[in-house]
């Protein structure tokens, strides 16, 4: 039992030592500052996420993100906590958001101030989001959700074209691509982070005139985004895509499957063996 506990402690020491923020550099392309953002994330207070809002703010730094929207289900409280914390520590830009998980359409509101009533019809939801100065993004709009979005195809500001599910289910990607083509809205990559995977696993590169929440929202309305998806597929404004491809750095920053170091592997191995010994020997 002591050996198991010792191994777990060593695993945490090794993992903590290996845990370094991804190197970040200011990227300017075509006169725009390029920010890496994740607009669809869930915290453990209380949106079936696994990490606290303040933990997500810190993790965003570690994943090389410049901005995140914390999008609680039908609530904005956790996003406000996250924004407050980030302002205190000088962290990334945190946009207050909400996911309206109605059936059959999930809308992500970003840049709002108060909770949007999810009982409203989808058109009125989006009107309220716009009234508050926010943007409306269609969340993981697979075919199942298309009928729900039919009344608002022209009023959506963005649609997710990269979502973690596209990496697991190949048939999902063409559905998201087709929906984005039909709406003509900005291409968005979001991790829909609940815990498993990485924050920013799918991310949006936003070409802003001004590094601020308002600057990000303006850029999305103007569709100045680039997203790298499955199989190196790239989406977004053709001019921005051309700039990004010529530069090459955004493609690198989009990948969160970075190689694990020896310390990382050691942390995993010691942790798993340590827990196996603990579970064998300890009655919790």
């Amino acid at each position, binding site marked *: 039992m002591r050996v198991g506990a010792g191994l777990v402690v060593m695993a945490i020491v090794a993992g903590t030592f*290996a845990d370094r923020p991804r190197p970040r550099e200011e990227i300017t392309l075509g006169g725009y500052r390029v920010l890496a953002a994740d607009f669809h994330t869930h915290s453990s207070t209380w949106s079936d996420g*696994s990490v*606290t809002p303040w933990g997500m703010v810190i993790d965003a730094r570690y994943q090389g993100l410049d901005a995140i929207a914390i999008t609680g*289900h039908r609530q904005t409280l956790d996003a406000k906590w996250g924004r407050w914390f980030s302002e205190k520590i000088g962290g990334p830009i945190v946009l207050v958001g909400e996911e309206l998980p109605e059936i059959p359409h999930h809308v992500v509101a970003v840049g709002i101030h108060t909770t949007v009533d999810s009982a409203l019809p989808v058109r009125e939801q989006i009107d309220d989001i716009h009234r508050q100065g926010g943007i409306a993004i269609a969340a993981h709009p697979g075919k199942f959700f298309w009928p729900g979005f039919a009344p608002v195809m022209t009023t959506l500001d963005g649609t997710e074209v990269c979502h973690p599910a596209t990496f697991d289910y190949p048939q999902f990607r063409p559905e998201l691509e087709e929906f984005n083509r039909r709406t003509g809205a900005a291409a968005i990559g979001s991790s829909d982070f609940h815990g498993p995977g990485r924050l920013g696993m799918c991310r949006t590169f936003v070409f802003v005139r001004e590094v601020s929440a308002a600057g990000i929202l303006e850029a999305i309305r103007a569709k100045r985004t680039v997203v790298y998806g499955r199989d190196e597929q790239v989406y977004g404004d053709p001019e921005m895509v051309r700039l990004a491809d010529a530069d090459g750095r955004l493609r690198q920053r989009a990948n969160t499957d970075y190689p694990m170091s020896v310390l990382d592997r050691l942390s995993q191995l010691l942790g*798993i063996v340590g827990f*196996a010994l603990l579970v064998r020997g300890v009655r*919790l």
Partner: protein
Amino acid sequence: MSILKYTLLTVVIVLLLAFVLGCGVSLLASGRLTLRLVVDGTLSFAFVPLCELIAYAIVYRLQLGTRQIVGPARAGHYAEAVDRYFAGNTPWLWWMLALMTATAILPARRLGSLLAPILFTAPIPIALSVRFDWRLFRHDGRSSGQAVFDIILQRAIAWSLATAYFLGVALTTRDFFYTFVEMGQEIRSWVGTML
């Protein structure tokens, strides 16, 4: 031992389970055991052992019946009972260990593919922990019927509390049922991908 010591023992038992869950969060979200995410995950999932503790306290109270145990002896009895009761989580811990191992092997972008295997295999620890609790409650001198009642009551309380906490304001009856629709879609997609 004093009441304080028994209380501390109960707290340690609760924290240990939360800590294991925190380690799971760290591995899932970063691929390593890092202090910042272990602490965060422990805090985020402390509600799991707390809900279990509350539910068991109610069942224990009912089980106690007419037994006249008071003061430190009662606190000690409860702490020991909690210790034995939490041992029923062992199947879940083995299951989590398997999940952690899969997490370490798979690239981050493929972790979503674990969802369907999780749904398929979760009944195993559920069944094993029920079997464990049934034996435990029978050992405590309860009849088969009473033991079954205790198990159902404990789970009804603990799972309702935990679900309400975890899903928060998002939880509506419609969402609750839709969760099963999504699970079905998930399994169908997974089976389709496998074929």
